[in-house]
């Protein structure tokens, strides 16, 4: 019948064998899987495949079109590169979580119905959490926990949206949804959380830098790009996305300038790059969608490359803070060169990858005369060069008068190979744009290498670099500091503590108040009342008689006590009970 398999199945089912394989075989196997996967993917013809009836739903596990295919290709490529990169760790958790995570992403982009889409979406999130947990530090466990909570919220939002949308429209196909009605808004926000929209973004900068060295490379590739895919599929041309994307591109660069942890700088710049893609989707013309997809394709590789080079430094030095690094070009020249290629690519230098992808989005914005977003994106493009293009390589490999303070070895061979492949791809994509343009969702009629474009971009970059140089030389450039910069996660991290305090002092306060007044106060009083009440009443009647008659006056205190005790334990002598009963009978008879 079919001579191909669902791409997600190859990754997820294939991964289950990994723990049982011995050393060398395992290494070959993990590299073989993504290669087989890619061959399989390219073999799948356009159209709907792997259709299953589940309950009353018709699931489509393999909906193939040009948009799905280009995302599938890049997901396989980056899996392959990242797996080479993590070979030396030989960590089964990383392998398994990585494959499941990538498999989840492949499942999402191939899903033809919202039910299997949601399943893979959550599968992706859950498996990504293990890449953070695998670091096994106290901080990473806490970050993974927050990550899980945020994504659980996002997942529930998405699920509610899907249910409402499906009930209202009767359609659960993964297709254009657009903003109309509650369901579509909830789906929109569910996508937005994974896409790291402003104010919904802090899970990313919180958790990614806490993951394992290889885990961060995996993470940088899939979650946000899957969300970009989902937006491109369901919400192309949705105007709010233009403004959301513009904000995403602009605000993180300010944080990136003052952030000390270089992996966190890269996390901010990841949001900044995804912002460009979101703007492209919001514009929604063929040129803009092509630009968004092309930029996602390039970003996966150059952002992976940057995370890999900083990760390699971290592997050798154990540090990722700008304050602790510098001067490593002496010891890690190849890593340094790869990092510079990544930096040039993200900055969109001509002949490097982002130059041919970012310009599609900029041109699409210019064509429609969206000049406010255009200006802000240009600002963001200059800013990204500033923090990712210069700051990352400068503070890691140069800087601080060129001294890390110790000699280190060059990165392990497998890491160098992985970075080398990624660097080669960055240059290849940038220098031969027709390859990437050929696999984009729509026909491309665009020439990035025009005189005006090349010169304009070079001017922008060189004068941004000049700003950096002048500010550095004049000492105005903000010194790196050991510090933490609060972001939107402030609200749930401090808010969580506040909620804890409120619940602690509030609910526990009520609890102890009730304990004091009801359990210990009223109940005790009630108990005393029933124990001593009747006795005291009787005593009040008897006492004046005692005093009048002088009966028991010598020992009245002990007499009283004995009297009360009798009442408390209902320990009456037969005689007095008989007298009392007679008295009651007389009362009944007389009245």
């Amino acid at each position, binding site marked *: 019948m079919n001579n191909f398999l669902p791409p997600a199945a190859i990754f997820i089912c294939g991964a289950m064998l990994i723990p049982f394989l011995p050393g060398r075989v395992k290494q070959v196997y993990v590299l073989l899987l993504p290669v087989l996967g890619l061959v399989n993917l390219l073999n799948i013809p356009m159209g709907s495949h792997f259709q299953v009836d589940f309950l009353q739903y018709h699931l489509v596990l393999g909906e193939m079109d040009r948009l799905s295919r280009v995302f599938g290709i890049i997901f396989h490529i980056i899996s392959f590169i990242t797996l080479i990169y993590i070979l030396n760790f030989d960590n089964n958790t990383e392998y398994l979580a990585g494959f499941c995570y990538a498999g989840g992403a492949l499942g999402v982009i191939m899903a033809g119905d919202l039910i299997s889409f949601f399943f893979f979406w959550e599968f992706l999130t859950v498996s990504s959490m293990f890449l953070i947990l695998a670091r096994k530090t106290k901080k990473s466990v806490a970050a993974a926990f927050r990550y899980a909570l945020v994504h659980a919220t996002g997942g529930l939002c998405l699920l509610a949206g899907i249910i409402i949308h499906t009930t209202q429209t009767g359609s659960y196909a993964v297709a254009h949804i657009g903003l109309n009605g509650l369901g579509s808004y909830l789906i929109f926000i569910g996508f937005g959380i994974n896409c790291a929209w402003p104010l919904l973004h802090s899970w990313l900068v919180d958790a990614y830098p806490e993951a394992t060295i290889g885990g961060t490379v995996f993470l940088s590739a899939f979650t946000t790009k899957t969300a970009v895919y989902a937006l491109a599929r369901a919400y192309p041309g949705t105007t709010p996305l233009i403004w959301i994307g513009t904000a995403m591109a602009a605000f993180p660069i300010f944080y990136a300038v003052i952030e000390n942890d270089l992996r966190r700088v890269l996390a901010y710049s990841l949001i900044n790059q995804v912002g460009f893609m979101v703007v492209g989707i919001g514009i929604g013309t063929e040129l803009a969608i092509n630009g968004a997809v092309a930029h996602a394709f390039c970003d996966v590789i150059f952002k992976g490359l940057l995370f890999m080079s900083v990760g390699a430094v971290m592997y050798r030095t154990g540090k990722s803070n700008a304050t602790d690094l510098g001067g490593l070009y002496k010891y890690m020249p190849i890593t340094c060169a790869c990092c510079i290629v990544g930096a040039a690519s993200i900055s969109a230098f001509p002949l490097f990858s982002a130059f041919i992808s970012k310009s599609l989005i900029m041109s699409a914005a210019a064509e429609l005369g969206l000049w406010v977003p255009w200006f802000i994106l240009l600002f963001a493009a200059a800013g990204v060069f500033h923090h990712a293009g210069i700051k990352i390589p400068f503070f890691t490999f140069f800087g601080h008068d060129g001294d890390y303070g110790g000699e280190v070895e060059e990165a392990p061979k497998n890491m160098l190979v992985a970075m080398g492949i990624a660097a080669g791809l960055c240059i290849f994509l940038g220098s031969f744009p027709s390859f990437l343009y050929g696999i984009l969702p729509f026909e491309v009629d665009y020439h990035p290498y025009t005189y005006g474009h090349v010169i304009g971009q070079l001017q922008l970059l060189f004068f*941004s670099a000049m700003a*950096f*140089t002048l500010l550095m030389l004049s000492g105005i450039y903000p010194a790196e500091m050991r510090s933490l910069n609060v972001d939107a996660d402030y609200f749930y991290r401090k808010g969580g503590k506040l909620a804890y305090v409120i619940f602690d002092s509030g609910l526990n306060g009520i609890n102890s108040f009730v304990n004091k007044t009801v359990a210990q106060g009223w109940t005790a009083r009630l108990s005393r009342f029933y124990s001593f009440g009747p006795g005291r009443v009787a005593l009040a009647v008897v006492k004046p008689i005692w005093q009048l008659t002088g009966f028991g006056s010598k020992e009245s205190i002990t007499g009283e006590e004995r009297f009360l005790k009798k009442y408390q334990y209902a320990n009456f002598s037969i005689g007095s009970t008989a007298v009392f009963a007679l008295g009651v009978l007389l009362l009944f008879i007389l009245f």
Partner: protein
Amino acid sequence: MQQEQKHLWDEKKNIVILLKIFFGICVVLFAVDFVVHKKAHMPWEKWPGFYAVYGLVACVILVLVAKYVLRPLVKRDEDYYE
């Protein structure tokens, strides 16, 4: 032995050469706009030196705002959340 091994950027001279080349390229890139005119979508893209000035000003503003506005607002101790 470590002391004797001089690396490329340990020499101040090399840094000066690099800076000279860098500023030289900047001057050329700026000057070229007055000679050849670009085709563009937006009218201001045709202004000579538009991209150069924008890049420079944007980055200076970026750094100043980050340093003097954002950092005082958000900077905390490293163990702030602990």
